[in-house]
């Protein structure tokens, strides 16, 4: 396992659990023992995470990423001590920043919900080796993070159009679509990872999946109003 295995979710989960600081350690940059240079991926994940926690009002210094070799024990001790000192100085998570506990909790939960989406949007940037340390601070700007969250993409199914063919539900990788015969399909927004597969596979003759950006989706139909009344069948009846 490489430091590049560190997932955005790991970091956010730790903060959600109330950790006051998170430290990521990797091998020295440009000295990868393999061919992956995965520590650059770890660096980018950390930089992005710093931007994300800053976006919800946390001090980005609570997340640290450092690169060193097994032979640098003393440096490791110094870096760790310094990080612990800094985190202590910042105080308990949220308290130090003066954020309401409940608000922090829901903000972190929201970020975690967006992890799959963020991974898709920032994919290229997460895999790029950032050779110049001067670029670190500006790699993910606060404007970029703001718009990333603000312009969140969502998918929903237009109840007027859905013919309950179940294709989208079968293809949804995370089983986020409630489907039943003759019932308008519903995308569960909490489960949806915003991959757009449903939009892609919805037959063009129905064209029922809608994509929005930066606005909430309309609430789903109440369960007892989801039955589809088919025009053709109605005629027969």
């Amino acid at each position, binding site marked *: 396992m490489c430091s590049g295995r*560190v997932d955005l979710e790991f970091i956010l989960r730790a903060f959600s659990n109330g950790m006051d600081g998170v430290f990521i350690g990797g091998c020295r940059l440009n000295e990868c023992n393999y061919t992956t240079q995965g520590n650059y991926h770890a660096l980018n994940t950390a930089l992005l995470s710093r931007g994300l926690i800053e976006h919800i009002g946390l001090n980005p210094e609570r997340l640290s990423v450092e690169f060193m070799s097994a032979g640098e024990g003393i440096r490791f001790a110094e870096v760790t001590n310094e990080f612990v000192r800094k985190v202590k100085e910042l105080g308990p998570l949220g308290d130090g920043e003066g954020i309401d506990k409940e608000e922090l909790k829901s903000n972190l939960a929201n970020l975690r919900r967006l992890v799959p989406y963020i991974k898709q949007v920032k994919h290229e940037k997460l895999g790029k080796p950032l050779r110049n340390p001067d670029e670190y601070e500006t790699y993910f700007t606060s404007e970029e993070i703001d718009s990333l969250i603000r312009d969140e993409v969502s998918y929903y199914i237009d109840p007027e159009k859905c013919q309950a063919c179940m294709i989208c539900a079968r*293809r949804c990788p995370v089983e986020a679509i409630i489907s039943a015969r003759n019932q308008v399909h519903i995308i569960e927004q909490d489960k949806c990872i915003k991959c757009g597969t449903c939009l892609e596979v919805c037959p063009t003759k129905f064209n029922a999946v809608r994509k929005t950006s930066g606005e909430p989706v309309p609430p789903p139909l109440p369960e007892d109003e989801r039955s589809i009344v088919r025009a053709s069948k109605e005629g027969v009846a």
Partner: protein
Amino acid sequence: MYPDRFNQEISKNKAIHIHFAQAIPLVTYIDESCLYLKEKKCKICTAVCENNAIDFTQKAEKLEVNVGAIILSPGLEPYDPKLRDEYGYGKFQNVVTSMDYERLLSASGPYEGEILRASDKKHPHRIAWIQCVGSRQVTPGGNSYCSAVCCTYTQKQVILTKEHDAEAECTIFHNDIRSYGKDFERYFERAENLAGVRFIRSYVSIGKEDPKTKNVSVRYSTPDDGVQEEEFDMVVLSVGLTPPAGFKGLADKFGIELNSHGFCKSNTSNPLETTMPGVYVSGAFQGPVDIPESVFTASGAGSQVGELLNCRRGKLTTERKYPLERDVSVEEPKVGVFVCHCGANISRVVNVPSAVEYALTLPNVVYAQNQLFSCATNSAKEISDLAKEKGLNRVVIAACSPRTLEALFRDTLREAGINQYYLEMANIREQCSWVHSKEKEEALEKANDLIRMAVARASRLEALEEFDLPVNKQALVVGGGIAGMTCALSIANQGHEVHLVEREADLGGMARRIHTTLEGMDVQAYLRDLTRKVYKHPAVHVYTSATITEATGYVGNFVTRVKSDRGLTEIKHGATVIATGTDLYKPTEYLYGQDDRVMTHLELEERINEGDERVVNAESLVMIQCVGCRNEERNYCSRVCCGESIKNALALKEKNPQMDIYILFRDIRTYGFKEDYYREAASKDIRFIRWEPQDKPEMEATKADGKPVLRVTVTDPILEKKLEIDADIVALAAAVIPRADNKEVSQQFKVSLGPDDFFKEAHVKLRPVEFSADGVYLCGMAHYPKHISETINQAYGAAGRVVTLLSHDTVVASGSVCVVEEKRCMGCGQCVSACTYRAIELRETRQGKKSVVNPVLCKGCGLCNAKCPSGAIQLKHFTDEALLAQIDAAVPEEDIIEQIDAAVAVV
């Protein structure tokens, strides 16, 4: 208490002790300082030992073993500075050897990693290193050769000292800085650029000890300030290497000859052979060498023994039988926790019994106990017995870093009939007791945290299959120089077909341009003989004028397409050796290519050999070293040029004793026994003039007294003035440079290049002839510039590793690889671009594009896992579920409950 020999007798130890913390086997023993053994007194230990393990009647036994071959690797002895009174060693308390200092630096050393002075146990602030102690000396008590390793180990000590104490002032007195090894030049610069570090080129003498402060004064001289005396808190003697203790007796016993320095006598064409057939030599008994070279000579000697005893291969091996694995996949997790004392390493700080008690309160834990040394044979047996008895299906070992012992404990699980991937380790030594020795309560809390996290992950581990891959028994060697040919022959002599691919029309590589070695070997005769052996060997298939068009496959199963004289061939092979050699820098300086009196050192060698009169009859000849390297563009030393130039100079003096020869150098790097030739050259009036990089020698073509000359201007550092030398011939020591096609080769075979574009081995010291890509090996100049004897050493070393692989019918691939849950895959391809091993591909299915992992190519880095938006691709053994469980468990459950309570209270 008696002086602890492992700690250079700086600290004390008891008669019963372990040799040192990482000793193998890690067992306690009684040494000759025991009171009972000496005076029949005491015997307290027998009364205390509950297991009756103390046996005073044990005697050394004589064993007779019949063997077909012998490898001598007795190592070396550090030089004893007491042989020369003027070093003050043993007389002044704060004069230590580099070996003493090494122990002072070590966390397991006499003061647990604190550098303290013997006189007052205070931290020294001003420290001096004196280089070449016992080396490069022809005076009585010294050795004439260069010990080859001291420059770099001193730099390491300086860097570590600065890490201990950033304010320390470090001064190194040296003669030349011999950073001739791979990446050494950069390392030297790193040390040199640290604040408060001075490298001073000067002979020194140790003055006196201040009777009050016990500081030591050192006298030295610099061109700028003349003779000075300076006081230091501590003086470190960088002692050289000498032959192993009792070397004469050893030589007599095995019937081998020694060289004039007392090391094993060997020849350039096979440095691993002694003068007695069937007896081989590896490591520092060949001569002063560093760790990487020791390691590959060990493998090389093994390969030669393999050639000799190939008919007996595998006759003494017994296959290990493990009990059948129990299928526990449907059982609830039943975790057993074993908490190790590690002698006192852990228990001195962490209250181990409390940790055991705590472990028993954790979910899924059905059993827990402590152990003195979990890694000891009896403890491993205890774990596997208990696992069977208690029906454990997961085991957590709370001990040290998995890096060293995970393999051992996995084996223990297999012995218990449990899949080895059900093991998890909690590192409560390096990550806890060793760093929290002053905060015992917190240390226990942290140990409990680590154990809780380990149990959480262990509960979610899955049984994994390691799979056997068949091994094709043939090898491919890329490059037909000395390295490639030697390696190919050694592999073929051990019963494997070898395909040797050479890009040129003829075999031989760079060696075709070399006529003799410094030691006098006739290289062309050697090369002819070697080439003949290669062509005559029925198992070696030679492809000349060859290019590799495609290389695919993986360990044991490579497929390489070669276009050559033989047409287009597809070669299936189990192992690959990269021995593609190097190139020579074509100088752009000093009128090279414009004036035919200017030539490279290799061209000079050719002319000398041809007897070119203009060269041999020259009145004056100048050699300029370090042309094209040790600069910004190529920040490394080409290693071979100092020897090459001295060899040429000596050959010229032989033919024309009247010739004035000047060698303009930066540092003369005649390491090891080559130092003797440097001394010989100096004694034959060959003039050595040192230049600094900021003041390079200059040259112009002009006339002197009507005769055309090459006028070389250089600053003489001793006379401190410009010298003008009118030369007839100027030879440039052109750098050895990586081949331009190294990048292409590295991409074809999925191996990496280092910062200077030489091929990068898997580990500098531990795996010096292997790549991190399994089944691909490295030797010769493709790795780094080296002399012929070193190339041969390394070629045999690579052959040894190749045959180790090819002698198996199968190789085992790790079970910790990535796998795709097809339903969850959305076909975005982010995993494909994250994978540098090209182990993942997108395949079209009826449900759209889906990723597929080739487990054989996957190295288990998990980059794809972190990129996957849907969690479809998972790195087995490090799944999201298991790692998140571990992260969640970092917060104790009661804390979470408290948080919830607090939240409820607020509401």
